[in-house]
């Protein structure tokens, strides 16, 4: 059974932030990643079929509306749908 994050680390976390040590940032909830996923979807042979196409369109729209996380989620579902065997 894994050991949970020790209390000392939890207490130290804000301290690290406070001392200027930046915590790593997840980059896959961004507009750039949306663009990367749109390109990947377009390269897939099943991208034109449903529901991949509509999911991709929804994802792109959400990304353009400034909701990259929701957009990325839609695009990922579109990619998974496009990868699925017919």
């Amino acid at each position, binding site marked *: 059974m894994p050991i949970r994050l020790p209390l000392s680390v939890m207490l130290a976390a804000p301290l690290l932030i406070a001392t200027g040590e930046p915590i790593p*940032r*997840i980059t896959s909830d961004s507009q750039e990643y949306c663009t990367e996923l749109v390109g990947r979807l377009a390269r897939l042979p099943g991208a034109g079929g449903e529901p991949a196409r509509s999911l991709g369109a929804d994802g792109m729209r959400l990304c353009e509306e400034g909701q990259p996380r929701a957009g990325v989620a839609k695009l990922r579902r579109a990619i998974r749908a496009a990868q699925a065997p017919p």
Partner: protein
Amino acid sequence: MTPPPIPQEDLPNPWDPLLRFLRSAGFRFALLFAVVFSSAAAGFAFVLWFATAGSLDRQTDAALRTDALGLMERWREGGPGAVSDAIAERLAADVENHAIYLLLDPRGVRVAGNLDRWPAAAGQGPDGPWSFAFVAREGISVEARLYTMNLGEYRLIAGRDIEEKQRLRDTLAEGIAWSSAAASIFALVGAAVLRRALANRLRPATRTAEAIAAGDLSRRVPSSGLEDEFDRLGESMNAMLDRIDRLMEGVRGVSDSIAHDLRTPIARARAKLEEALADTAEPGALRAAIEQAIADLDHITRVFGALLRIAEAEAGARRAAFASFDLAPVLADVAEFYGVVAESRGQALVTELPDRIDLVGDRDLLAQAVGNLIDNALKFTPPGGRVLLSARSLPREGIEIAVADSGPGLPIEDRARAGERFFRADASRGTPGSGLGLSLVRAVAHLHGGDLVLGDAEPGRLPPGLRATLRLGIA
């Protein structure tokens, strides 16, 4: 006038009631209940936690390990490029948005993944490649589980955002905390109820004991009708009180009997001595009076001696003198001694004794007890009558020594009282004796783990005769 100062040790301690409460059995039982109940609740919470939160952690680690092994395989197949492609594919298909990857080249430059820098805590923890770290997702710090490994000179992190699982864990922890609080309240309430129930069930016994201590010896513990341990305790107390009552009655009876039975020989000796003193002219009469007085005093001494022996036997004081011996020759000696007495009265003393009776006991007391039984039998058997002394050793019941006579027997209503000190049946008032013989026999029987049983020697015959059976414990 000022009152004298109270000594310090006589002052009541203000903590006494609390200390008494803490030392009470009720409190201790209640505490035990609370501890057992709380332990059970803690055990339940532990199992629940292990089966839920622990299971989530184990699932996360298993998924990460599988993920890392897959990437390692890709590394072996195609190097850094293959791993980069695999990471991009996995991130693209991560609908749950939990996956975290980072692949750094030997210079520390990011090659693939969705983490902008290497977390300081990654691979630094006590679990080797496993660690927890905080990462920022859309500006919010979330907790992540990371697995770190080296692929040649490249470094790889495979991780999962466990924030949702953490929220589930927090919800579960909150639930367990509330449950623990509820369990603690139940434990305390249960303990209080248990203590109260215990006190209520013990109250009748306590009140009875208090009433008896205050002098009301007639009080007994009432039964609740539940026939539980407390009722059995009450019954035991009542049996004990009845026994004490009987003993006190016996002591009172013995005192009365001593006063009554010894007053006569003392008064007679005194009268004889006074008479002799007044009539000093006749030396013969004086001598006879003195001899009679000595005989009376000897009788009193014998009575006291018998009383002392009975008391010793009843108290078990002579158990230290117990030894292993053969009872058969002892009985034969006693029969021989009384055989002479029987012959002189025209009676027959017959014996039916086995060759050997092994026994652990007090030889002298047993000889005297059997002698008392034969003496009694001879006393009440008419001339020409027959007294039978028999003994047998039974494997289960122990040893039986029986003395049967052809005398008038003893009425059933007198048999229960025959072992009491100074008791004499109406029919025996005319015969000499102190009423202590059977008391000693019974005391000796009890000392040897047995009893004295009286019955008809020959039921149906007139007179039936008396059969006194001395039963002794197994040797």
